[in-house]
């Protein structure tokens, strides 16, 4: 490891393992925080419970601008899948789909706006960058407990023998299960409303087959977000992304809705894969991996305390995910970077109190869109929960309307419009539609 020399020195000096910064978790947030801290000359340790990249899963789409803010021109050497040139939204009905898409040559110009990625390949590269910057990355080590002294965080206890590590500031990037954040009392109990459960498969297909099926070149990729029948009427969504020689396909459902069905996560995904609009796209492919991960949905409503004496919280652990827009990795990287900058400033001042670290919260508002986006979307998930018609009735209605208008059957267009209106009123009363519509206006 690049930083062996400094770590040994740290141990000799005080007889115990001391660093300038402890980062808990080696995912997008943790490795960004470790890299930025180390570059500033801080003696940094990043503790990860798995091997690098081994325990992380994502859809996944990586956004260029946030990633480049920590790893400039990363696309030249990072193991990425395909640059995204086309993004699609499909509303699936049992035997049909309404498709909306946007494709632009501009997306492919350097640098591409986003890439599809596989975390088990990408994270080891992030870890390499952090180590090159001088951080000590310690894998296969779990932080069991955060150590405090009169309410101030002073370090962590790992599962290793004599496994205590000390630092004046600890940056918690522990991911979607906020064990340590809760231990510190910075986050409350997680309930069914706060999370969604996603299941994913990575399916192998030859690159040429992917390119033919999705009308892309060797250096181009496509994303498809799948609403409607992808989740069998439950609140959630599916997705399909093209990688180099695999497809990422998955489906997620809000936990508070998932408990209302007996369909297992595995079967929910098989159901999506068998959908007539989806099956041809993955035909002949071989499943290479099956995984499952939660996505934090609590957002603004369930934001933990983001800072305390000697501690900052980043990424999924901090609920910094805007699921409506498929954004989590960007907020993780941004928050890791801003936590690092806050830690650097704290070291310069020699002050790690809440009051100094509060600047992290302001940075998350002012310097990046993270908190302002989360606040804007805070009621987004309540709407479909209160107006379940958007999950099935309206997509079905849209399908009915599309089919009616596109079918030439001898009826006049006026007659067709009448049929659609009649169908609409049968499916959802005028009062129901008014209620849905007026409440939707409040979302804007």
């Amino acid at each position: 490891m690049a930083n062996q020399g400094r770590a040994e020195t740290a141990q000799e000096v005080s007889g115990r393992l001391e660093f300038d910064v402890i980062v808990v978790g080696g995912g997008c947030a943790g490795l960004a925080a470790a890299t930025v801290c180390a570059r500033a000359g801080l003696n940094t340790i990043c503790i990860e419970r798995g091997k690098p990249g081994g325990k992380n899963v994502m859809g996944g789409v990586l956004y260029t601008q946030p990633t480049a803010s920590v790893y400039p021109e990363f696309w030249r050497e990072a193991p990425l899948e395909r640059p995204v040139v086309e993004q699609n939204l499909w509303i699936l009905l049992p035997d049909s789909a309404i498709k909306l898409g946007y494709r632009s040559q501009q997306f492919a110009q350097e640098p591409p706006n986003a890439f599809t990625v596989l975390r088990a390949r990408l994270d080891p590269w992030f870890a390499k960058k952090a180590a090159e910057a001088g951080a000590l990355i310690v894998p296969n080590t779990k932080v069991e407990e955060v150590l405090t002294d009169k309410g101030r965080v002073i370090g962590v206890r790992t599962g290793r023998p004599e496994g205590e590590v000390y630092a004046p500031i600890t940056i918690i990037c522990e991911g979607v299960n906020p064990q340590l954040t809760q231990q510190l009392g910075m986050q409350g109990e997680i309930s069914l409303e706060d999370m969604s459960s996603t299941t994913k498969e990575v399916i192998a297909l030859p690159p040429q087959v992917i390119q033919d099926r999705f009308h892309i070149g060797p250096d181009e990729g496509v994303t498809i977000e799948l609403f409607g029948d992808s989740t069998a009427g439950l609140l959630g969504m599916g997705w399909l992304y093209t990688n180099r020689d695999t497809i990422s396909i998955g489906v997620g459902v809000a936990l508070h809705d998932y408990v209302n069905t007996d369909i297992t996560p595995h079967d929910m995904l098989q159901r999506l894969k068998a959908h007539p609009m989806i099956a041809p796209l993955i035909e002949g492919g071989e499943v290479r991996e099956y995984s499952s991960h939660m996505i934090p949905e609590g957002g603004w409503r369930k934001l933990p305390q983001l800072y305390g004496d000697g501690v900052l919280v980043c990424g999924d652990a901090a609920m910094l995910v805007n699921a409506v827009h498929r954004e989590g990795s960007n907020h993780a990287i941004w928050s890791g970077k801003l936590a690092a900058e806050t830690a650097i400033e704290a070291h310069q001042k020699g002050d790690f109190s809440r009051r100094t670290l509060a600047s992290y919260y302001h940075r998350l508002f002012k310097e990046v869109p993270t908190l302002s986006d989360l606040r804007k979307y805070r009621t987004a998930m309540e709407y479909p929960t209160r107006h379940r018609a958007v999950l099935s009735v309206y997509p079905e209605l849209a399908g009915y309307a599309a089919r009616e208008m596109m079918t030439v059957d001898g009826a006049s267009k006026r007659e067709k419009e009448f049929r659609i209106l009649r169908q609409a009123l049968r499916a959802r009363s005028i009062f129901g539609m008014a209620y849905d519509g007026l409440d939707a206006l409040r979302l804007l």
Partner: protein
Amino acid sequence: MNEGLADKLYLLKYEVDEESHLVIKDQKTCRDCERKPCINRCPAEVYSWEGDRLQVAYENCVECGVCKIVCPYENIDWRYPRGGFGVSFKFG
């Protein structure tokens, strides 16, 4: 277990610890639990009802964390496996 699922879990790399990282606090609570959502909500079929006990096949766990949240009685003592143990993804 669902055969398709068993085959897929076989694709994952597991370092299986000697002891389970998932512990049922009180089996009696499970006996009285009507819905047992842990069984169907788990993506890896870790939980199953065998006779009068909830069995925990922790070696299949993909460490998502859903079970502890859906359990209506907070009856699962949940933690991640020890450092270096548990599942590893090859793609992610």
